């Protein structure tokens, strides 16, 4: 495949073309072309008389031929006319058969006809340059393309629709109001105006700060959605962790045996549940051991637990006591970590023994022989996750997170300044700083490297 990784140049008068579907073979592929010459170029090679008259958002069928009139493929062309297209330019999306020969031929012919190969992120760059989206939205496109689960997709869509930009804008407006109250005191101190009530200012600021903090907190969740929720299966050796992994994945992913310590290294698998992506991590059983390799595995297991959003703690109900389980949890679980206790080998214990364990919270009994309880576990996991992800606006972008964090620092300094009765003009500096960092998110204050950074994260033809 032809690829062009050179620096972005932005000649908007050129018509650009690139494969929009992933490289590799599939039943069909889509080639996208955007620019003022799109239909003039396409007309030469696409044989359908209605091309010039067809309405925007319609689909035409026809032969794609080369300059000698040789048919390359039968294709469908979706037509999007300026300005109601992704880039606000004329766009044609050619669906052809997914052979790399055909794809390359079509692109080559279009380039010979006057189009240029699009560079990395150039379609989105055009959408941005043509005022179709702001910076946060443009970033969302990158996330959208990379989204692997429904929830990640939803989140990217929300950002694309401008939800985050809107929220940031609302925050900025609040801060601007606050700043203007301060400025009033400064510039009109000699005049007969009433000054802002300090308690009200503090309240306003606290409210703003809460919103920022909430957005910041949503970053972990947002990131988990984007990259998969880290879910760790942990417990003592031979408690059935790998069996659980296999049951959840519904495949024999991890080696299972009766020998304690079979799992030496961590096993990581992607697991989709209720539209959410989980990174399911099976770990080595935790115990004191002289075996060098195994002890590395144990160490690794403990580390993985620390990074988990959800801990599935498995124990063998036939050999463990409630006290042992409780002390294990206390030892390994990190504070406030979501945990589900899984008592394995239900088939080997008496109803009386079961009652003892039922006193523990968030408890599920499973057995390798009876997988019906796996459904219950899945429900429990998905209920917890969807509750956690319910926040309508989630931050998942590092740049946004950093900007919000800086904003928070400035806001705290403002609050501190008010508390110490610092002069208003100094407090105003921190407010302005907060406004500045907030503005960086939606690109209100846009610096050149910011742009470069964002647009270089795009793949060609997206």
């Amino acid at each position: 495949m032809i690829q062009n990784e050179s620096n972005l140049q932005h000649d908007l008068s050129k018509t650009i073309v690139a494969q929009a579907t992933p490289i590799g073979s599939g039943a069909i592929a889509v080639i996208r072309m955007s620019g003022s010459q799109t239909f003039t170029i396409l007309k030469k090679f696409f044989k359908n008389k209605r091309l010039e008259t067809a309405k925007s958002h319609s689909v035409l069928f026809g032969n794609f031929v080369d300059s000698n009139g040789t048919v390359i493929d039968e294709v469908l062309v979706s037509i999007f006319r300026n300005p109601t297209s992704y880039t606000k330019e004329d766009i044609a999306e050619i669906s052809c058969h997914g052979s790399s020969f055909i794809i390359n031929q079509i692109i080559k012919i279009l380039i010979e006809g006057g189009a240029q190969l699009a560079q990395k992120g150039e379609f989105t760059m055009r959408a941005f340059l043509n005022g179709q989206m702001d910076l946060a939205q443009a970033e969302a496109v990158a996330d959208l393309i990379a989204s692997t689960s429904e929830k990640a997709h939803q989140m990217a869509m929300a950002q694309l629709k401008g939800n985050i930009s809107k929220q940031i804008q609302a925050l900025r407006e609040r801060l601007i109001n606050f700043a203007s109250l301060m400025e009033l005191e400064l510039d009109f101190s000699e005049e007969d105006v009433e000054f802002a009530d300090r308690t009200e200012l503090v309240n306003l600021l606290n409210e703003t700060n809460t919103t920022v903090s909430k957005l910041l907190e949503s970053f972990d969740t947002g990131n988990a959605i984007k990259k998969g929720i880290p879910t760790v299966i942990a417990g003592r050796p031979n408690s059935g962790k790998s069996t659980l992994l296999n049951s959840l994945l519904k495949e024999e992913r991890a080696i299972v045996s009766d020998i304690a310590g079979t799992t030496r290294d961590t096993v990581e698998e992607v697991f989709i549940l209720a539209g959410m992506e989980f990174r399911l991590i099976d770990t080595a059983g935790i115990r004191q051991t002289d075996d060098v390799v195994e002890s590395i595995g144990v160490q690794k297991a403990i580390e993985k637990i620390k990074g988990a959003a959800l801990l599935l703690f498995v124990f063998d109900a036939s050999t463990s006591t409630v006290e042992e389980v409780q002390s294990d949890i206390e030892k390994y679980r990190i504070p406030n970590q979501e945990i589900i206790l899984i008592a394995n080998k239900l088939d080997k214990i008496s109803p009386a023994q079961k009652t003892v364990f039922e006193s523990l919270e968030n408890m599920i009994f499973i057995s390798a022989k009876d997988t019906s309880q796996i459904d219950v576990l899945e429900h429990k996991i998905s209920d917890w996750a969807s509750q956690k992800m319910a926040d309508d606006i989630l931050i998942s972008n590092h740049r946004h997170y950093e900007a919000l964090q800086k904003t928070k620092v400035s806001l705290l300094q403002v609050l501190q300044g008010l508390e110490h009765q610092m002069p208003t003009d100094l407090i105003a500096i921190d407010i302005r700083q907060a406004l500045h960092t907030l503005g960086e998110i939606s690109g209100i204050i846009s610096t050149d490297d910011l742009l470069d950074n964002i647009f270089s994260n795009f793949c060609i033809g997206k």
Partner: protein
Amino acid sequence: MFPEYDVIVVGAGHAGCEAAVGAANMGAKVMLVTMNMNTIAQMSCNPAMGGVAKGQIVREIDALGGYSGMVTDHTMIQFRMLNKSKGPAMWSPRAQSDRMLFAAEWRKRLENNPLIDFWQEMATGLVVKNGVVKGVKTSLGLEIPSKTVILTNGTFLNGIIHIGEKQFGGGRAGERAAKGLTEQLQELGFESGRMKTGTPPRVDGRSLDWEAMETQPGDEVPSKFSYTDTPTLKKQRPCHITYTNKEVHETLKEGFNRSPMFNGRIQGLGPRYCPSIEDKIDRFAQRDRHQLFVEPEGWDTCEIYVNGFSSSLPEDVQYKAMRKIRGFENAKMFRPGYAIEYDFFQPTQLRATLETRLVKNLFFAGQINGTTGYEEAGAQGMMAGINAALAIKDQEPFILKRSEAYIGVLIDDLINKGTTEPYRMFTSRAEYRILLRQDNADMRLTPLVKAIGMLHLDERMARVNEKNEAVEQIKKYFRKNSIHPDQANSYLDSKNSSKMKQRDKLLPLLTRPHITIEGLRGCQAELDNYLKGFDNECLEIAEIAMKYEGYIKKEEELVGKMNRLESVNLSEKLDYSQFVSLSAEAREKLNKLKPRTIGQASRISGVSPSDVSVLLVHLGR
């Protein structure tokens, strides 16, 4: 009859006088053309210089070698440092001046400059050849040749004075309006507009009941404006404060139907922050009183300026309402307030040097650019004068950045944003307020004008060096020397600051809230002794530099960030209509204004952040 001048300045108000000084002190031969030699440097409105943000500008003018500060220092009757309770960025010097002494002092100083000539007559036109100005035409039909011309016509261009239903041509009470220039400029392609401003009645101080008003004295230890060796006040005259009331408002309302403001006769745009009393009553109906400052016009005169009572209502209504003000029951009026309408030219037609885009070597300064205030006018005059002189010598223009001076903010705002009401400076217009303080204007600016060859700066430069050195020494002392808890704790306690547990350096203590150098030197004899070697001004700057270092650094970082955009140059030849991705408004504005840098482009109203991104991308950034 006339030799060819380097610079002709038309108008001898605050802008014109500073323009003449700026050009002459750059070595240019200057002709100052004024309609009346007896009204040079009039304070047409209130007899005061400075105030919040404006005081900083006066100090900047002084730092650049202008005379406004010195003239004020020699003629003031009261001095106050405003906002002293706030942070150092807000400290703003303000002085009441003796109106007549002020004008006389200015004239004396102009006359003492051998490079400045005078001509008393109305300038009625410009000599323009092939888009370049060549001189000025006068009402007698004379032509004065010149390489450059600076227009500072103030409120005189087609000025119309309104008092109630009466209206007559005039540039100021008792003075003729200037005719002809606007029309010629329009023919040359300039867009003109109308603005409106007003002034309150002047009254007889002998008829006022001073006991009934609050007294507003000057500072106990008065400071001053100029960085040169000018005197400070030994005695001062107080101002007074009184208030309007419901009765006053009711009486004024009776005249509303005869008010040119309300019956549509005045079309010009007035300032929102300096409204007439009728405007205040109309717009803020819920308020039953408004504050008035009763300001003396000089040492030896009983004439009083009623600040806050600006009005264009009929004189009988003004008089009747005024006598219902507390303390004014028996007031006699010297002259009524009036409104004045005048022509201005949108300053977006100017370059950063204040030279017009349309006519080469023609500069505009002051109210003609839609500004208000002596300080704003003087600052523009100074910059136009300097740049006119530089243009003749074919030297690089002298442009101040927003991070360097309020004057930089002023001109940058004007040329990029234009204005829809008389433009006045506020500290909130400056994004780097803590850097643009009144105490350091000379340290910021004097070296810059020294570098371009401004004359007569030796005294100021010596002082700048002295200050820089003193600040370094004091900072070093505070960094190196420590203080014992026994010495400092009772002072700290008295300021609600936590007590020290062990010896500590002076610097961290000073950075605590409410702790001052003055307080610390009371705690330790060595420190007190050491600091005796420095004057108060140096101590103050050193204190600010140490105490507010964190904030100063923050703003400096921001300046650094923003300067990256300022350093991306845009060619004047760039045709923005080829950038289809810019908004239509941005394309039009950019083609009209031709910004010098991306930073400047970003401040043009109508140019959105995404337009700026588009420009950056197009430039391959």
